[in-house]
């Protein structure tokens, strides 16, 4: 047992792999939040008047709100005036209105394993890279355009496709939805915009890579995905941040619209800096993600692997409005050291014969707290709704917590709703069996945890699944004594 501890200690001190800081000239506006700042952000992005108004309305509403307290989280007070709401790592070139990419920046993304030169790209994946407040580069844009697919940064979409943006922006997540949604609507900087036209099956995975680099800044990205009738897209999202002692704020909104017979798969591997072993630093991750399955037979599937962030507050949801629409939520949330996660989903059944599946696997280690919180609501007219939820928790160690808070609101008697939850630990017998077969304890834990999470990991696109497996093992290092 003692020997085991030594190995684990060594591993615990292993650094967060993506914790480096890039020395990139970055334009950061002064910290603080007020109407002038919002006007400045809007002006920098050359936004139309309606968008500025949209931001200001949200800001004024935000001023009336309090931080939500219902989550099983201990959130230290956040000084919203101490944060800078805009950081642009792109060098300004006065002669040329096009922005030029700093070679350091290209290197940063390469170091993260996200090459921005198309010839080096992962096969079959188009990337939109976002650093701090700005989209740096979007690859394969032209190829996609030939099929009528729009994949670009949100800033670009506002300029190029203002009608589409105006039609859909805020239509799924209203600024009044919650505290962080109001904040994001007021100050959102960049993010990705995706439009898949009728009948088109997107030929490659679309991916956005988010990176917070600058200190004392918040990242407030906004993603909008519209899948028109009979279309299909698989979208991936990855995130990292440097190791910093202070906390960084990330408050994003993702809106997805799924029309008749369309299908959207949205996968996330979230690896924001989780803070150090003493709980210092780390990203506060407050995200509102929601998809509106408006169309008949539409389908939205969320898959998330959450290993990062000091605090995670995130509930990717499906509004099942169209008849026969389907929502899925597959989640692995791993917390270690002093991390806290309160994550889950909402399945709102509105249409007839709607179906939803929830599979959540929580893994708690160290001194962390890990909660599943989910709502299944069947409205009065949602005849024939079906839901199956399974929420399992795995505890590693005796100083962490694993919690399950499902809510079921049922208003239709034809609904069949099932929820199950279990809690378990890795047994000595399992570890011993692995040891006896020559597998070290650390590796055995990695194996067992990956096996436990397999049901969810299987839902990820291949490259992502391999990444996620590694991430689970690495994040657990030092977790078990």
């Amino acid at each position, binding site marked *: 047992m003692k020997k085991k501890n030594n190995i684990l200690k060594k591993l615990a001190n292993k650094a967060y792999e993506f914790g480096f800081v890039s020395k990139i000239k970055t334009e950061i506006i002064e910290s603080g939040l007020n109407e002038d700042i919002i006007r400045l952000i809007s002006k920098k992005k050359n936004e139309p008047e309606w968008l500025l108004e949209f931001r200001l309305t949200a800001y004024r509403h935000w001023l009336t709100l309090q931080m939500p307290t219902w989550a099983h989280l201990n959130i230290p007070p956040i000084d919203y005036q101490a944060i800078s709401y805009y950081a642009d790592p792109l060098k300004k070139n006065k002669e040329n209105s096009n922005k030029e990419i700093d070679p350091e920046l290209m290197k940063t993304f390469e170091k993260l394993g996200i090459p921005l030169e198309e010839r080096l790209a992962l096969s079959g994946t188009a990337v939109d890279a976002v650093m701090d407040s700005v989209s740096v580069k979007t690859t394969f844009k032209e190829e996609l355009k030939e099929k009528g697919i729009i994949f670009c940064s949100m800033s670009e979409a506002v300029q190029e496709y203002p009608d589409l943006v105006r039609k859909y922006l805020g239509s799924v997540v209203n600024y009044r939805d919650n505290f962080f949604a109001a904040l994001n609507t007021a100050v959102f900087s960049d993010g990705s915009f995706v439009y898949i036209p009728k009948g088109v099956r997107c030929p490659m995975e679309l991916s956005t890579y988010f990176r917070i680099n600058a200190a004392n800044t918040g990242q407030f990205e906004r993603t909008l995905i519209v899948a028109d009738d009979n279309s299909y897209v698989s979208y991936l999202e990855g995130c990292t941040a440097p190791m910093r002692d202070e906390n960084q704020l990330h408050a994003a909104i993702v809106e997805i619209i799924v029309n008749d017979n369309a299908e959207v798969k949205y996968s996330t591997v979230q690896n924001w800096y989780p803070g150090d072993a003493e709980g210092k630093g780390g990203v506060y991750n407050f995200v509102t993600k929601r998809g509106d399955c408006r169309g008949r037979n539409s389908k939205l599937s969320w898959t998330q692997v959450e290993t990062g962030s000091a605090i995670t507050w995130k509930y990717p949801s499906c509004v099942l409005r169209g008849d026969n629409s389907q929502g899925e939520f597959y989640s692995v949330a791993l917390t270690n050291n002093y991390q806290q996660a309160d994550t889950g989903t909402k399945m709102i059944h509105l249409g007839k014969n709607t179906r939803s599946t929830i599979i959540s696997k929580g893994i708690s280690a160290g001194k962390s707290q890990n909660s599943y919180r989910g709502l299944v609501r069947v409205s009065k007219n949602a005849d024939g709704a079906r839901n199956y939820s399974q929420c399992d928790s795995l505890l590693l160690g005796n100083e962490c917590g694993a919690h399950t808070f499902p809510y079921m*609101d049922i208003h239709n008697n034809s609904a069949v709703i099932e929820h199950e939850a279990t809690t378990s630990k890795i047994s000595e017998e399992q570890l011993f069996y692995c040891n006896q077969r020559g597998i070290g304890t650390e590796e055995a834990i990695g194996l067992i945890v990956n096996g436990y999470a397999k049901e969810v990991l299987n839902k990820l696109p291949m490259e992502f699944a391999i990444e996620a497996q590694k991430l689970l093992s690495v994040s657990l290092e030092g977790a078990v004594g």
Partner: protein
Amino acid sequence: MNCGEEYIELFEKNRELIDKPCTRKLNDEREKAFISFKAQGFPGIKDENWLHTNVAKKFATDYGMDLARKANTNEVRNSFTCDVPNLKTFKGYIVNDSFVAADNGGKQLPQGVFIGSINSFAESHAELIDRYYNTLAQKGDSVVQFNTSFTQECIVLYIPKNTVIEETIQIVAFLQTNVDILTNRRMLVIMEENSSASLLLCDHSSTDKKSLSTEVTEIFMGGGASLDLYELEETTDSNTRLGNLFVKQEHDSRFNHCNITLTNGFTRNYVEVVLDGEGAETNINGLAIGDKHQHIDNRTLVDHRKGHCTSNELYKYILDEDSTGVFAGKMLIRTDAQQTVSQQTNRNLCLTSCAHMYAQPQLEIYADDVKCSHGSTVGQLDESALFYMQQRGIPADEARHLLMYAFAGEVTDNIKLEALRERLHILVEKRFRGELNHCKRCNLCK
């Protein structure tokens, strides 16, 4: 926003009158509780613990409260017996919120056992009252504080160590009133080491006046003690019941609870069981049958503080017409509660599209070597079982009844007293057939 002010004013104006018949401890605790209530008021529906139950609204009625203790309790004695066939019980009554001893035909409880008013128990056992009264309830919510503020009577059941009471103790509570009435009922059960008892609490109301009762019961179980507690609510749709049960179990004690809401208006039952000694076991079961506009909210907390304890929880709801069911059950496993085995099951049947069910099973776990699980379902009767029964010639309605009865049976089967179990089976069956329940020889609910 809520109507707490009226009660605060009422309390302050009548403080002397309220204190007058009560023993010192009641008044001491009243003082503290009132400060707490005054600061909070009634819970609002934004309160996570009261999300679907608007209790403040229920207090808005202009109720009468018998603060001067004037109710005539004499004539009801022996006219309302609430007998369970084939079950002999040792009886006591609660009329409104006063305890009335029953004529038990000269029967005696074992030596040292006390059942009666706290105001007389305090004369001989002041130290026990000081040690136990309001120690569990003091951290209760504002409805509990309201009860502690206004309560003038508390039934004490005291069972000394190694004492086994064979006969079931039955407390029959009912209302006698010609005005809308608010009552505050209170009970304190002190069970010393290795004592054993079974307790049946029937809550009746037959008045069509509006009524609201706050109820707080505190139960202390010493090491190895054993208690079966059966609570049965048979009230009317004009009644509001706000029950609060606090149980603290020491090592190797065993608590078995069955709470049945057969007929009611608006009910909220809070059950909190603290497992504070190794080897303690708790089984809490609930059955709720709702129709019309009935509202049934059961909220439970099983707090595992020590290792090697077991808890089982089963709550079932059958909701017909426009009724609403709320279930929120939390299992809290603290760091020291290693080797806990804990299971919670919640099953709900919604029979109409106007019935509403809100279910919220919760696990909060801080110990790693535990076996915990919960399951919750909402659904309908099994169509293939219904057809199978029809094929055997059982009419569709009858088949439905049989299935509902079987569904409820899983809860009532946990009742250990055979006579009571049989009685409840009949009551439940009658309930499904829409027949009113009449206790035999009962003068009140004709």
